């Protein structure tokens, strides 16, 4: 098998399988060997699942031998963020609270990609319960950015972004609540997609903030990201918030001209954008213009309120979603307690990291009697206004282009002691999350130091097709 494992694509794998240049079992073996050997450089994976990957590979080979279609993701090594539950495979959510938790069921997205022939190599590190922007909030240590080992990979899906950037996975699943796919994709120089809210079932995604949580793909190309999303997307009867909207064949819509498409640039974002990240971003905008896109300003007047709104809604929902980790079930229970109330306090005090506790407290506060109207209810109203900003913008343009992060990957430990600065860095990704529109980060260029910078593309609800089309043209320009 003479394939370069680190630069595989879904297309190359399919070609290798179709021409019998490699079997899925061989691919799985090589990919596992490579990933396990390379992983210490970044710590992207928390644990591997060789048996599962090899079993899936054997099923693919058997299908090929029988002349059956082995599926769209046949033989594709996938890394999965450790907040997505996998049957029989430890799912820690980056938390001491679930250090030894083995779920008894698979997430719908996992079922769907495995049915399509994917090989799950292992589970990737992330900020605890997906709360963070650097993956430094994991109970199991940080992840290093493959492009700059002294820097963070971004977060919370830092492990998944790093694995794809490092070549230890061809594609990966992440989750995005306020930018947790797009920002690490930008930091690691890969493609990261947050689909429309409701596009991919959340069944089996450990909840952080239910009304904002998404599962989405990471890949080294727009095409692979689109293919992976295509296998996961679509209505799931087990998720009442999943949408029945038909799922187009995303990859068949690529390689098309984008000439004449109208793109919006929100001035409210640009005023926050300084330094090298800004320069790289504006170069990207120039590329889009050269491709024939018509770029104009569109107003997003409620952008300034987005961060406050997000951190009220997300923490409120988190405070409720994380209540179940109380020491009664799962694997962690503090030994320093003798009454029920003490068990709750000690278990949660010892089991959660600082960021989780901070958000649980914030969320508990904003939902408290007497504060609900001033915070949560008001935040919901502002959220509707942010969504209206998008709706009005999309009356004028086909897509919005925006930066992903105000700065490129920062050094490990650089911002961990300043949570507020960390929250504020979510400014460009949070509005799309609040509106529930599809959005993605596509590599845009690098800073002088060689740090990747992403460009964000946002489109109308369920119009991932236009988003991928623009990103694909941009990637190939």
């Amino acid at each position, binding site marked *: 098998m003479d394939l370069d494992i680190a630069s595989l694509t879904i297309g190359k794998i399919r070609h290798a399988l179709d021409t019998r240049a490699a079997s899925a079992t061989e691919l799985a073996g090589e990919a596992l060997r490579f990933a396990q050997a390379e992983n210490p450089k970044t710590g992207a994976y928390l644990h591997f699942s060789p048996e599962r990957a090899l079993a899936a590979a054997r099923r693919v080979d058997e299908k090929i031998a029988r002349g059956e279609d082995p599926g769209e993701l046949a033989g594709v090594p996938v890394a999965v963020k450790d907040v997505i539950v996998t049957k029989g495979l430890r799912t820690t959510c980056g938390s001491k609270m679930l250090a030894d*938790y083995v779920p008894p069921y698979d997430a719908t997205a996992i079922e769907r990609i495995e049915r399509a022939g994917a090989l799950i190599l292992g589970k990737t590190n992330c900020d605890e319960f997906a709360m963070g922007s650097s993956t430094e909030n994991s109970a199991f240590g940080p992840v290093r950015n493959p492009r700059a080992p002294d820097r963070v990979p971004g977060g919370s899906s830092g492990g998944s972004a790093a694995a794809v950037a490092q070549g230890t996975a061809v594609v990966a699943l992440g989750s995005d609540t306020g930018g947790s796919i797009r920002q690490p994709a930008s930091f690691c120089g890969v493609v990261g997609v947050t689909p429309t809210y409701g596009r991919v079932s959340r069944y089996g995604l450990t909840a952080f903030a239910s009304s904002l949580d998404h599962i989405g793909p990471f890949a080294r190309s727009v095409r692979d990201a689109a293919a992976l999303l295509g296998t996961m997307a679509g209505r799931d009867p087990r998720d009442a918030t999943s949408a029945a909207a038909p799922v187009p064949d995303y990859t068949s819509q690529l390689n098309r001209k984008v000439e004449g498409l109208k793109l919006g640039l929100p001035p409210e974002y640009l005023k926050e954008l300084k330094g090298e990240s800004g320069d790289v971003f504006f170069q990207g905008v120039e590329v889009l213009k050269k491709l024939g896109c018509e770029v104009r300003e569109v107003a997003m007047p409620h952008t300034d309120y987005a961060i406050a709104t997000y951190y009220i809604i997300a923490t*409120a929902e988190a405070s409720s979603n994380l209540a179940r980790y109380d020491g009664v079930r799962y694997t962690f229970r503090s030994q320093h307690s003798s009454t029920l109330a003490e068990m709750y306090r000690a278990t949660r005090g010892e089991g959660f990291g600082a960021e989780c506790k901070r958000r649980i407290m914030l969320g508990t506060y904003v*939902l408290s009697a007497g504060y609900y109207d001033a915070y949560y209810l008001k935040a919901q109203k502002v959220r509707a206004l942010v969504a209206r900003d998008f709706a009005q913008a999309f009356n004028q343009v086909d897509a919005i282009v925006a930066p992903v992060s105000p700065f490129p990957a920062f050094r490990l430990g650089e911002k961990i002691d300043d949570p507020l600065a960390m929250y504020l860095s979510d400014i460009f990704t949070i509005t799309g999350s609040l509106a529930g529109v599809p959005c993605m980060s596509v590599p845009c260029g690098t800073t002088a130091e060689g740090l990747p910078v992403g460009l964000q593309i946002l489109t109308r609800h369920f119009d991932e097709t236009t988003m991928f089309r623009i990103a694909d043209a941009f990637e190939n320009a």
Partner: protein
Amino acid sequence: MSTSAPALATPEMIARYEPVIGLEVHAQLATATKIFCGCPTSFGAPPNSNVCPVCLGLPGALPVLNRVAVDLAVKAGLALNCTIRVRSRFARKNYFYPDLPKGYQISQYDEPFAEHGWVDIVVAGEPRRIGVTRVHMEDDAGKSIHEGFRDSDLYSYVDLNRSGTPLIEIVSEPDMRSSQEAYAYMTEVKQVLEFLEVSSCDMEKGHLRCDANVSVRLKGAEKLGTKAEVKNLNSFRFMKEALDYEIARQVALIESGGRVEQETRLYDPDLGETVGMRSKESAHDYRYFPEPDLMPLAIDEDRLGELRASLPELPSRLRARFVAEYGLREYDAEVLTQSRATSAYFETAARISGDPKTTANWVMGDLMGALKADGKEIGQSPVGAGHLGELVKLIGAGALSGKLAKQIFPKMYATGDAPAAIVEREGLAQISDTGALEKVIDDVLAANPKQVEQYRGGKTTVINFLVGQVMKQTRGQANVGVVTELLKTKLG
């Protein structure tokens, strides 16, 4: 004595006060599966066997609303005269408890599916209308078990079979003014739910539970007193006892110059007392917020129309109709409408017999007596409604005497056979055939010349003796009316 029960108010003191009572009734909906997952709701399964990721509240699991539960809940709302919201919403009620696996209950808060209803009751002949503030849906928690295990002194056990069982909570206005009214309200609500087959209302299995808000004020006072919430009123008797106790406790407190604290109290049926559980200060802040995992619940006009059309005749209307249509007494109508099965049984039997009043007597008398002695419900009656109707019809047609029917009924109950079959098998048909009777009468007259003479001498009451003799000869099978007429003719 370390803890002594507080002195209760005397009846004279209590008489000066007016209790104000509101009830919160929880009823388990009679669905085959849970409210947010497909697990069975069956009772008595081994602990933690009727469970799945959803009702265990496992990370990543999501609720999906059971539409059958919605239909049952809406029927209850309609029957309780509520307005049904076209769009309602689920909300999370957050609190920590070991048998609450998600750390929150999925309930409804500011947008319940039903509100502004009422229930009519009659207490001591006085009709009263009790307001129903709202009805909402929610999921039940599991069960904590603190006893019965080898290591129960160290650990409590949790059984999550019940977790996710669909409930409705029916919240009344504080419109009740006595424990009797509360009792009547609860009775009516239970009967309505049973009639709708919305809930089995089996209190022993916890399918119907009740909490009460109780306060007292001096009669004539406008301002409401401070209320206490009394929990754990899990039988009709406990509810009445607990309310009477709580009223007397509060009156005594006020009379002795004290103040009623706003608190939650638990009824202890062994002590017959309510015991303080937690004060207002330590009350839960449930931090309700809209459940983001479920879409708002929409109930469109068409569905509402279908559900309304599917409602059976409810007990209050049925009672009125039984009185008007069948000429039953109020009391009898009440007994015969105590359950949908009873009223259906009666109506079927009455239609076949053609004699509703006699049928009513048989259902309430012999049938209910036999069932009670046997520990059976009317739905399990070995005597079908059709057979009982036939029995009453045979009496009406003169084919059976009342006395014979009383002999036949236990045989019907024991065998499940039709009355005609038993009559034939045992040769018990009433003899109304004058030809057959004339011979017996002639014999009797011949054997009792003295009495014949007395009758003809003017002592007509002696005829009863002669009728008795005929009945004796026919082993009770003769038709008394026919015998009397024949005797009169022959003696006259």
